[in-house]
């Protein structure tokens, strides 16, 4: 019998995964928009994210709500400790949301697509530094954060942030290819390959650094069954990555690139989960210790859990409505 905190941890992971899979693409597009390109390409990018980005961002709000409701102790400690990364993420999200709307209305579109890109970059750096800070460990005394404001500034955080940024760029690019019939990036395949390579090296380095920073990882990763699982996941990631590189080099199956990227993301997250479980904040706070009372978890399960499939269903409907490719001139609505 699985207990309630574990169930809620599973739901939380699912929500975060959905957020990364969905919003990762439009954050990546924002990052790509910072690279030099033609005005028409830029409008096409903005158009691609138009109908979906706010629904995508919803999953961050939902995940944060779930973390707050189901694991209030973790919510308070993580946000308290990662004050600066979280604020960076927030400023980035504010900038993105506002500049997206201003972009559609303004005469001078350049400044707002630039702001959209800058906002995306800030949000990505915020997420990367927050993840780095979390995995690097948070000092907790008596259920309260007891470290300093800059504890998250470590080499580990640097590598993780670079990895997050480049992986989003790759997935954003793959999404753009999937959604447009436009030959907008015929010769930037090499760039994607380099970005994918940087992602790989950055995350590999970070993974090797982790056990040295925290002993808990070393013992966890070297005992069964976690070690077998991690080994299998790493192997799978390697295989899918090879397939991705092969397709990229041969310039074929371009519409499958996005799917392959998503598979790698899911595998990587699964790997992280296996590596960190049962901790919510390694190495101090476990899932069980961070959970809200039994009664709350039960109430939330009856109240929210049946709604999640409905939320999923209407998001799926949204994606179906806007499924087909967008041509360069297609702009409707308002």
């Amino acid at each position, binding site marked *: 019998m699985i207990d309630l905190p574990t169930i809620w941890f599973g739901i939380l992971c699912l929500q975060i995964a959905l957020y990364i899979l969905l919003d990762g693409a439009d954050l990546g597009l924002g990052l790509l928009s910072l690279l030099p390109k033609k005005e028409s390409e830029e409008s096409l990018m903005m158009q691609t994210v138009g109908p979906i980005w706010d629904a995508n961002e919803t999953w961050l*709000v*939902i995940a944060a709500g779930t973390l707050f409701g189901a694991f209030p102790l973790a919510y*308070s400690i993580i*946000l*308290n400790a990662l004050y600066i990364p979280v604020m960076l993420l927030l400023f980035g999200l504010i900038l993105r949301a506002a500049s997206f709307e201003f972009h559609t209305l303004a005469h001078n579109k350049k400044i707002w697509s630039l702001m959209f890109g800058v906002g995306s970059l800030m949000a990505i750096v915020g997420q990367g530094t927050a993840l780095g800070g979390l995995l690097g460990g948070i000092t907790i005394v008596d259920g309260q954060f007891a470290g300093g404001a800059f504890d998250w500034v470590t080499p580990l955080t640097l590598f993780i942030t670079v990895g997050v940024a480049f992986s989003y760029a790759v997935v954003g690019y793959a999404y753009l290819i999937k959604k447009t019939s436009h030959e907008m990036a015929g010769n930037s395949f090499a760039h994607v390959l380099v970005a994918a390579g940087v992602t790989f090296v950055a995350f590999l380095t970070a993974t090797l650094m982790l056990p040295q920073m925290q002993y808990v990882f070393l013992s966890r990763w070297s005992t069964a069954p976690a070690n077998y699982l991690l080994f299998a996941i790493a192997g799978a990631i390697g295989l899918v990555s090879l397939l991705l590189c092969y397709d990229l080099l041969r310039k074929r199956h371009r519409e499958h690139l996005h799917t392959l990227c998503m598979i790698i993301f899911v595998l990587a997250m699964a790997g992280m989960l296996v590596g960190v479980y049962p901790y919510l904040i390694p190495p101090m706070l476990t899932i069980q210790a961070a959970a809200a009372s039994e009664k709350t978890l039960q109430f939330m399960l009856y109240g929210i859990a049946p709604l*999640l499939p409905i939320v999923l269903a209407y998001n799926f409907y949204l994606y179906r409505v806007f499924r087909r490719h967008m041509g360069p001139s297609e702009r409707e609505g308002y």
Partner: protein
Amino acid sequence: MDVLTFSRLQFGDTAAFHILWPIMSIGLSLYMLVMEVAWLYTGNESYYRQLRFWTKIFILTFAMGTASGIPLQFEFGTNWAAFSAATGDFFGNILGFESTVAFALEAAFLGIFVFGWNKVGRGAHLFANAMIFVGATLSAFWIMAANSWMQIPVGVVVEGSKLIVSDYMAAIFNPGTIVSFLHMWVACIESTLFMMTGICAMVLLFGTRDTAQREFFLTAFKYCVALAIIIVPIQLGIGHVSGETVAKYQPAKLAATELHWDTNAPGTGAALNLFAWPAAEGGRNSFALAIPGGLSFITTVPQDGVVRGLNSFPAADRPTTLEATIVFYSFRLMVGIGVVLLLLMFAGAWYWGKGRLTLAKIDKHRVFWWLWVLALPLGFIATEAGWMVREIGRQPWVVYNLMRTSEGLSSNLNVVTVAATTIIFTLLYLIFGALFIYFTYRIVKKGPDLTTPV
């Protein structure tokens, strides 16, 4: 200044800015829903044009609301970690409901509503419109339930440093929830209607001379006045019940709202201060213009009953003199605006009845139209003032009588970080607020598209 002051400033700033957008989202989504239903029911194109035009402003308000709403949710953790850890069992749970059930609904259907005109059928489009309105309303409900619980924290027991839920329904439907939700929800609609009439009046006074365009804004004005005739009187009733709830459950807040210092003796009604100024050392007013017996008359049964004064609460457990003064004047500002808007609504109905709401007669009644222009921001000012009464009047408690605001603060924050983020938030919001006004001005100046086939 310390971390506590800056954190309070930051939350106050960001919340005061955020609330502007849900006000308009709720108000405009109601207007849009009424218009789409009317259009599909009657086939009258005029409704369709209204729907399409005001949607443009709605989209902008929704984006601003999302952008400024996400930080609020996170600030509970970043700046108020101890509060979040202690109350997460209930409070976090309710915010979870808000994001899952309400906000997600609104965000997903907005995409279909805005971009889906030629992609989905009319029925599906109307459904998306309705879901936006339902989502916005539900969102307001959950937020008001969570906030009301901070005012009247029932349904929980104290276990160590945590507040654990013992009775969910009692906590969600605490004595303040329904009345606060209705008060806020109606305030959203009322504020939006007077913003819209203000915009219409501006166009009619100073804007385009194109008859079709002017006719459009005159029609919108009439629809808004018609809705206001239903909404404004309701608000007066709800406001009164809301006051009674405060009198019953938060006597210190009532005393602060009225700058009522000394408890009156039984049988002698407490006076109602119309205007007052507290003495510098606190504890009494140095000046007061009062109606004898007025406060007891409106708040107690029998009508000369005892009303506790601020001095009867320990100084550490009630709002400071400064806080009480802010609450006192905010309350009067809110009520004053409520009365002004009621009178304006009557004037609108009167002019309408007299057949004066026609394009030809606008220049004859410029003063009338000017009044509506001046009333444009009043609803927002009243709503902000109402929130000042609600939140500052609750001090020094973050959870009334259970947890102090100072106890809810995060640990190990340094004042520079919090001050810097407060300043960045404020600057960003000032710039975005100004840009919103600019872009709304441009949308209005361009006017509705009256020619593209339906």
